[in-house]
């Protein structure tokens, strides 16, 4: 049963991240996703301090604020100060992450968070956090419920906002011309990424979030050109990585989050080589 809950948690994170990550990649914002997943740390710590517990709601609000703040700062540095965008991203997230680590050390006595957990999470602990009713009935681990709810939210967000996201992703100029707000969809997407990051943070840490945000969508993007297919395919790659990652971790007795991230890379490499061979064959001049 433990294995089931861990794999389920990993899979839920994988699908949430893969869906949002597809948009990030198409919008050329892969590293912004990386930046957000690091920069939400001070938000989480501050939320801890104010609420005094691991309540989900304050953490969500804290992280969402920080996530949006990060993108605003990056834009400000890039647009107003004319700093090249990669440097703007690099400065912003390291700065916020450093503040987060300092806050953790400063309030070490009040906060039940350690540095390692920030990086690679405690997915193995997920099954211990069961919701138990008064009659002793087990409803499953708390993180699974939270992640499941997040996934529902994301699917709702994507299906309701499909058209807006689609147009602002592929043709922002046209979107502006027909009166669809690019700013609105930009920040909605960024908030969704921040939310997913913070929900996943506890169980899988910052690294796996980044891996799942970027690698499965990139793998899918190598194969297909259609957004809908890309969304589905990247979820499948995410899911496969989560499942196989669990068994890899079991095999060599290592971190589950690390193994899942490794597996996303394995699938990417396989698809990359496969595509490479296929295009090579396709472009070969036939001999007559």
């Amino acid at each position, binding site marked *: 049963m433990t294995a089931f809950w861990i794999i389920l948690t990993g899979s839920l994170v994988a699908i949430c991240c893969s869906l949002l990550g597809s948009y990030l*990649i198409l919008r*050329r*914002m*892969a*590293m912004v*996703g*990386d930046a957000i997943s*690091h920069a939400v740390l001070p938000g989480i710590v501050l939320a801890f301090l104010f609420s005094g517990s691991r309540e989900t709601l304050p953490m969500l609000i804290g992280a969402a604020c920080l996530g949006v703040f990060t993108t605003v700062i990056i834009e*400000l*540095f890039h647009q*107003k*100060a*004319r*700093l*090249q965008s*990669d*440097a*703007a*991203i*690099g*400065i912003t997230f*390291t*700065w916020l*992450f*450093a*503040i987060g*680590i*300092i806050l953790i*050390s*400063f309030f*070490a006595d009040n906060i039940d968070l350690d*540095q*390692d957990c920030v*990086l*690679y999470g405690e997915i193995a602990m997920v099954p211990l956090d069961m919701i138990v009713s008064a009659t002793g009935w087990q409803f499953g681990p708390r993180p699974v419920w939270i992640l499941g709810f997040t996934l529902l939210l994301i699917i709702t967000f994507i299906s309701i906002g499909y058209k807006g996201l689609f147009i602002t992703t592929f043709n922002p100029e046209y979107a502006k011309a027909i009166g669809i707000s690019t700013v609105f969809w930009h920040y909605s997407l960024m908030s969704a990424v921040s939310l997913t990051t913070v929900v996943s943070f506890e169980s899988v840490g910052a*690294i*796996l979030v*980044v*891996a799942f945000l*970027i*690698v499965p969508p*990139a793998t899918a*993007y*190598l194969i297909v050109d259609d957004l809908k297919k890309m969304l589905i395919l990247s979820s499948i790659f995410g899911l496969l990585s989560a499942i196989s990652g669990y068994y*890899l971790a079991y095999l*060599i*007795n*290592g*971190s589950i*989050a*690390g*193994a899942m*991230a*490794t597996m*996303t*890379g394995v699938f*990417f490499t396989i698809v*990359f080589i496969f*595509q*490479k061979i296929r295009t090579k064959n396709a472009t070969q001049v036939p001999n007559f």
Partner: protein
Amino acid sequence: MDDLLNFLSFSDPNVRFVAFGTMLLGAAAAIVGTFAFLRKQALVGDAVAHSILPGVCLAFIISGTKNPIYLLIGASISGWISMLAVDYISRNSKLKSDTAIGIVLSVFFGLGILLLTSIQHSGNASQAGLDKFLFGKAASLTADDVTIFGSVAAVLILVVFLFYKEFKLISFNPDFAKSIGLPVKTLEFILSSLTVLAIAVGIQAVGVVLMAALLITPAAAARFWTHQLWKMILIATFFGASSALIGTFVSYSYPSMPTGPWIVVCLSMMALFSIFFAPKNGIVPQLNNQKINRLKIRNENILKLFYHLGEGNKNFFKGYTKQELLASRDFRIQEIVQGLDHLKKANKVRKLDDYWHLTSTGLVAAKRVIKLHRLWEMYLNQKLKLAPDHVHNDAEAIEHIITPEIEKLLEKELNYPKKDPHQSTIPYND
């Protein structure tokens, strides 16, 4: 205060090691970071920093010891592979380079964590301390570490000094470098190797995640202060080294404070200050400049309005009410109120009852703007052969920018014309 004196006297050997070690690192990272920044490879540094972890772990598994030389070799090799991988993926697929960076960064780091935890769980007693690579161990640097940092920093500085001109060229214009026969590939290889080396060493001070800051932030901050490469390197080095010193001091005074993150926060503060307040390039001076220009244009436009009205009435000193002025040109009411106020202080207009009049100084200023406008129209018409009905809008913008030197040139070039293309008189102040 005592803390500060104690700290600065460097009497505590531990303080000495930590302070010098981190300062050397900060300086070395800033130097290579400047080139990485200019070659738009700032985030590649981040990817390399993350990708060093599996190399360190594999080196440990293979060698079975924590000998820093082995670990450094392992780190450099996997750092190198990651750099090649980013390059290969973005070159050979439709994925953009930032996506490639993200893929390499997260997968290599995931692999590193997997190996690290696997080593930890294996119960090998000598592994303790490997996890220092994650967050750095600045506070526990030893004399040996400082020796290594010192030699790496010396090598870096020497190589950059020797190849300064070549590195400068491939950072700004690789195509030109190639065309004059420089071995661009080899030079890029050397520069990338230096970057990997600096990162592999630097990670031990600030850790994987924050290493990117040591590379990027000093260079980005220095960029706001100068346009010259050697000055930029010096300033970046100063930022890197001084924040290392401050960070060390903070964790010396408050032992529970981590050194690495404090170094990064100091650096970020310097960068933020530079981004906002650096003269000329900072956000605040830029906005300020824009505002000054906007006000200048507004005031000159009001003066022009007086002149145009005066031309029609054949009397430049006639007075007008605000409403009359507003009716003649499309100003917002607030603009004209503030503008007139401004001009009154500069003694260019004066107010009698409700009527505003041009003063003689105001007339001189107004004439100049009008002259520039009409001269420019003339220039476009005569020299660029633009039709008279196409020249007004251009002149409307350029009249506020032309300097006295260009003014003289224009006058001479056009031989002091009397009329503009619309047959209006060009007024000269004599």
